[in-house]
């Protein structure tokens, strides 16, 4: 049997045959999730729903990226990967850490949001938004101001019976465009490029949260609009629900996996326990100004 690596990410303890530099490595543990190479069928038995690249049965989720890998996630939290000949391990990991990981989280009723998480005096502030909204750049700006960043891009939420909504720490890197790094006077030197064809880089961050989760106090929905200056307004009711659903990572996949009801109720629990704001920003705006603006909202 090949050696196993152990990781913690998004509320899950993972034993993996593949080394995952994006995740926090931990010492050997009883892992809920196992990741290994093995045989993956081309078709699942008893398919209940089928979409391009993916098949769903009552017990399994199959995801097939020709030329890279075919992945199967079972209800027992076992991820089996069949790597296509000649595929690069970086590419195998990208789909593993995005869609396959999303399926794993959804199957465990752990709600992944498209959001960065910042630690503000021991409570979490989530900055949610579509790609390009400025989540990671704002996270970097707040990091420069001395705040701890728990998550970049994906933040996974659960409802704790005692603490209420909590967010887990996930990856240990920010994913940043070269331009965003340059805005903060960083070069891409010594940084790992995420994919050869994309100028996006992996920027390591240090974390020191004691038990890997924090209660959530605020969620900000960051949107690029045709406006002259940055503004914000409270988000509540249907606007908040829509924001949460739109920013749920792979939300169509969650629906396909039968999680619509579960998540609707989670959104309600979240909505009743947190403050929420929509921040509109112009397409071109000084990242430091935006970070200052968001810091002000989070401190009031």
């Amino acid at each position, binding site marked *: 049997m090949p050696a196993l690596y152990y990781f913690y990410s998004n509320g899950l303890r993972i034993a993996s045959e593949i080394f995952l530099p994006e995740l926090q490595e931990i010492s050997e543990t009883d892992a809920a999730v196992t990741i290994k190479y093995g045989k993956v069928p081309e078709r699942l038995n008893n398919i209940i729903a089928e979409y391009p690249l993916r098949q769903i049965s009552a017990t399994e989720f199959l995801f097939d990226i020709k030329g890279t890998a075919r992945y199967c996630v079972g209800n027992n939290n076992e991820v089996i990967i069949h790597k296509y000949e000649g595929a690069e391990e970086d590419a195998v990991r990208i789909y593993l850490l995005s869609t396959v990981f999303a399926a794993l989280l959804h199957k465990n009723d752990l709600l992944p949001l498209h959001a960065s998480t910042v630690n503000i005096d021991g409570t979490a502030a989530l900055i949610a938004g579509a790609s390009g909204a400025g989540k990671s750049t704002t996270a970097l700006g707040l990091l420069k101001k001395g705040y701890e960043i728990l998550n970049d891009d994906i933040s996974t939420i659960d409802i704790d019976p005692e603490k209420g909504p909590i967010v887990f720490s996930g990856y240990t890197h920010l994913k940043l465009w070269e331009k965003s790094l340059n805005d903060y006077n960083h070069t891409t030197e010594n940084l790992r490029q995420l994919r050869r064809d994309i100028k996006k880089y992996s920027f390591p961050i240090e974390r020191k949260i004691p038990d890997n989760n924090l209660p959530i106090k605020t969620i900000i929905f960051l949107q690029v609009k045709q406006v002259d200056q940055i503004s914000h307004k409270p988000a*509540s009711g249907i606007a908040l*629900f829509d924001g949460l659903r739109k920013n749920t990572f792979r939300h169509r996949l969650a629906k396909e996996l039968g999680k619509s009801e579960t998540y609707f109720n989670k959104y309600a629990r979240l909505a009743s326990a947190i403050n929420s704001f929509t921040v509109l920003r112009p397409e071109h705006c000084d990242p430091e100004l935006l970070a200052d603006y968001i810091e002000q909202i989070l401190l009031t």
Partner: protein
Amino acid sequence: MGVLKSETILSRNERILTNEIGTETVMMSIDEGRYYGLNKTGNYIWRILEKPLSFGDLCANVAAEFNLTERQCKEDVEPFIEELTKEKILKVRIQ
């Protein structure tokens, strides 16, 4: 317009989930997967339709609750009910 008669019976679609957030009610249709928000009046209408009710009785209730004339109320409530019916949130049964 105008398909609703006083004796038309209105009832909730059972496949709707609701959550109350502050003064707003947010609903999800299980089959369509869509979300809807109801304001205070909408929320009141949804609440009293817990049991099927005729359109006439519904309007009488809303009029009393919000101090409106029944006629005024019918004009205001009808488009709302028609929309909820179109979205399959409510069911109508013509007597």
